[in-house]
């Protein structure tokens, strides 16, 4: 990237003749506003660094003087000759007496390091660990129960392969040591936390650690009893529908729910839903009519 002139006064929003006190006040206000531990916006960290760099220069009289000299010459130059790049101008000003081999992704910009040398930043107060980051990882209920390896792309574009343990729970946090923000002055990187969120499932409704699932049965299965298949998070199971099961009856499949915090699993409840054919065939109609004629069952008995 080409070297660009940075207007530190503009960064802090102060006049060129601002006093030390004005500069400090502006810096403190902006530092509070953009501190990455306080502000979650994606560009807050970049702004915070910029503000810190501006303050580093403008709060130090000798750096400020050197910076001002460069700035006034650049502005004078801009007015007289259009088209010259700042990089060319900068190299001809004799400011480039600090030689750097390579520009890394240090705390300060290339502009700062070209102007003052890479070691010009005031010594910090010692190494400090980097910021912990956090993101939400949405999992299907099946994936939460089964676990497995996942490739994730983080906000900053990094791709991670993560081992999701089997049986993670809603709200549980998985720690990825050292995958957070970079440390300061040689400090260790922070950690990255993944907060588990369970995606709503079209079939299974969650009630704490228990799950509900609808179990469609035919009227005769409900009346006579049957063994039918029911979906679970780990495949299909068989459940016995006892004779005389009306809609809403809950059939419990013990331990087929979500993992519990204390260990073990919740239950899966298959809820009987009696289904009838939408289009009744001639034969079915005869049979239902016969049943209607001959049965003395009154589902509304006792309902007034």
């Amino acid at each position, binding site marked *: 990237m080409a070297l660009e002139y940075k207007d530190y006064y503009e960064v802090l929003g102060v006049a060129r003749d601002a006093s030390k006190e004005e500069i400090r006040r502006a810096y403190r206000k902006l530092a509070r506003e953009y501190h990455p531990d*306080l502000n979650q916006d994606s560009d807050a960290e970049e702004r915070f660094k910029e503000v810190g760099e501006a303050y580093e220069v403008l709060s130090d009289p000798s750096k400020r003087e050197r910076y001002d000299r460069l700035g006034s010459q650049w502005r004078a130059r801009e007015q007289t000759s259009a088209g010259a790049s700042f990089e060319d101008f900068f190299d001809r000003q004799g400011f480039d007496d600090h030689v750097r081999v390579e520009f890394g992704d240090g705390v300060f910009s290339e502009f700062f390091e070209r102007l003052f040398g890479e070691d010009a930043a005031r010594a910090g107060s010692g190494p400090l660990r980097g910021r912990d980051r*956090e993101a939400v*990882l949405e999992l299907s209920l099946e994936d939460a129960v089964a676990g497995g390896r996942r490739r994730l792309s*983080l906000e900053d574009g990094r791709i991670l392969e993560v*081992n999701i343990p089997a049986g993670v729970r809603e709200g549980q946090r998985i720690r990825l040591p050292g995958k957070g923000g970079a440390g300061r002055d040689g400090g260790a990187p922070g*950690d990255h936390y*993944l907060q588990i969120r369970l995606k709503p499932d079209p079939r299974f409704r969650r009630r704490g650690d228990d799950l509900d699932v609808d179990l469609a049965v035919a009227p005769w299965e409900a009346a006579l009893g049957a063994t039918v298949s029911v979906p679970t998070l780990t495949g299909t199971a068989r459940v016995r529908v006892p004779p005389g099961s009306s809609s809403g009856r809950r059939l419990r499949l013990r331990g087929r729910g979500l993992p519990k915090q204390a260990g073990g699993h919740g239950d899966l409840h298959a809820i009987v839903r009696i289904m009838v054919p939408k289009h009744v065939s001639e034969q079915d109609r005869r049979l239902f009519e016969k049943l209607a004629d001959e049965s003395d069952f009154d589902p509304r008995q006792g309902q007034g």
Partner: protein
Amino acid sequence: MSAPRRRSRALQPAPADAAEEQPVELAVIARQAGVRVSVVRHYVAFGLFERCSGSNEVPLFEPSCAGRLAKAERLRRDLGLNYAGAVLACELVDRIRELEQQRGQDLPTA
């Protein structure tokens, strides 16, 4: 009110790295955060975090306290706060995050 002994659900260890999720001594937290033990003691005195197990003589802490400690220390250094101010800032930020999550303004998705 006594400090909660139970390990919080949010910090339930993943089996893969269970070994490193064991509670650790203050010196380990300090080293991991890059903060001097004497400084950590100030933060503990102001209630930045509490011991999760161990005894009063040898208190033990969640490893995740290192992240919280480093955050408080960054805020203190960067914004010119004192210890009480840094602890307060951490608590307020946690509270804001909680409220944002309740309102559905969620964390970024991995």
